[in-house]
């Protein structure tokens, strides 16, 4: 993937995050941070993948980058959930979930060779969903721990 494509995908993710921020009732002053975090997440993920890192590692580091960017831009005590929600969704766990459910429906309605193909698709999509979600959860946790350490906070239960 060339730099132009990575930037374009990042911009699309940023605009997507900003629009989603409006739907999720983010206060207007958060819309630019939401755009920047959406851009950062997708840009980091695509850039790391273009350097040869796997999808899961790239997604994990991108999720951590989103938390760090949000903490740097919004200097509040806690990282805003709306910033995370809007910026994390372009990392594609949601589309994997739809793919997995659609594959499950195809399996239940197929026979013969189509069933075999649908089963393989289901296993592929379900494992992709699981690994992408796990990567995002670990990345979020990793990012939040870094933020806590940088801010010198010791209350680990209130991330």
């Amino acid at each position, binding site marked *: 993937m060339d730099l132009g494509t990575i930037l374009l*995908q990042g911009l*699309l*993710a940023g*605009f*997507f995050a900003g*629009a*989603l921020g*409006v*739907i*999720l*009732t*983010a*206060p*207007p002053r958060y819309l630019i941070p939401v755009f920047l975090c959406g851009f950062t997440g*997708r840009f980091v993920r695509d850039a790391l993948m273009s350097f040869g890192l796997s999808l899961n590692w790239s997604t994990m580091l991108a999720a951590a980058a989103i938390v760090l960017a949000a903490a740097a831009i919004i200097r509040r005590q*806690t990282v*805003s*959930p*709306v910033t*995370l*929600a*809007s910026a*994390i*969704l*372009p990392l*594609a766990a*949601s*589309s994997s*979930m*739809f*793919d997995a*459910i*659609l594959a499950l*429906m195809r399996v239940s309605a197929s026979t013969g060779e189509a069933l075999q193909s649908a089963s393989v698709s289901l296993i592929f999509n379900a494992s992709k969903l699981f690994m992408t979600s796990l990567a*995002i*959860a670990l990345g*979020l*946790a990793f990012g*939040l721990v870094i933020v806590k350490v940088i801010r010198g906070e010791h209350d*680990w*239960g*209130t*991330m």
Partner: protein
Amino acid sequence: MEAIERALDIALIVMENGGSTANAERTFRNVLRGYRQEGGTVGWRLDLVTVSGAGDDRTLTVVRAIGPVGVNLVRASAAVVLGERMARGEIPPAALPSEIARVRALPLPYKRGPVMVASALTAAFICRLLGGDLPAVGIAFLAGGIGAFFRPVLRAAGVPAAPLAIVCGLISASLAGLGLRLGLSPTVGPALVASVFYMVPGIALINGFLDMVSYRHLLIGLERIASAALLFLALAVAVAFAYSFVI
């Protein structure tokens, strides 16, 4: 006792408007700090909260129901700020009821028109990100925007979250399916999935992740994620229905 009741009033505003459990608990303790009191043990569920602590000469347990969880982050944010100001002593306890009423009356930050446009744009951008071509982006834009028009109407009529997701999802996915059936675009998957993306329960999902990561709120985190998964399933049923008449 009054301190706990007022602290719960404000913490429940956070919970019922899309705030995370950690934020709700921090707000609860901040308000108690304003009353010069320490909080007891707090247990959170999606439908109720329990607080146990020492009273004058005995142990008290307060149980409060949590109303339907919606999303108004302006209100949730204002409640968190109110708690912080209480903790700093900027608001006297006597002024708290009027402050709570003010926060409860805060309207949604965006009117229906901008939310419809944002829904349409969300569908268009995610369609492109998922690999849709330009006609598919147009289909997703229109389908998402039209579906978003019906969402507040149904919500005002009191339709619960899961049926609401199915109905709006069916409207949007069917419109997208119609465009695809007319042969406007060959990128079926991105157009169909993107058309319902404005309904994705992002806040529930992220709050669930945050609660689970904190470990202290593991159970409510699981509840939130299960509730988000149910909405995903409702949307997937809508997409599958549209998919069946495109193919």
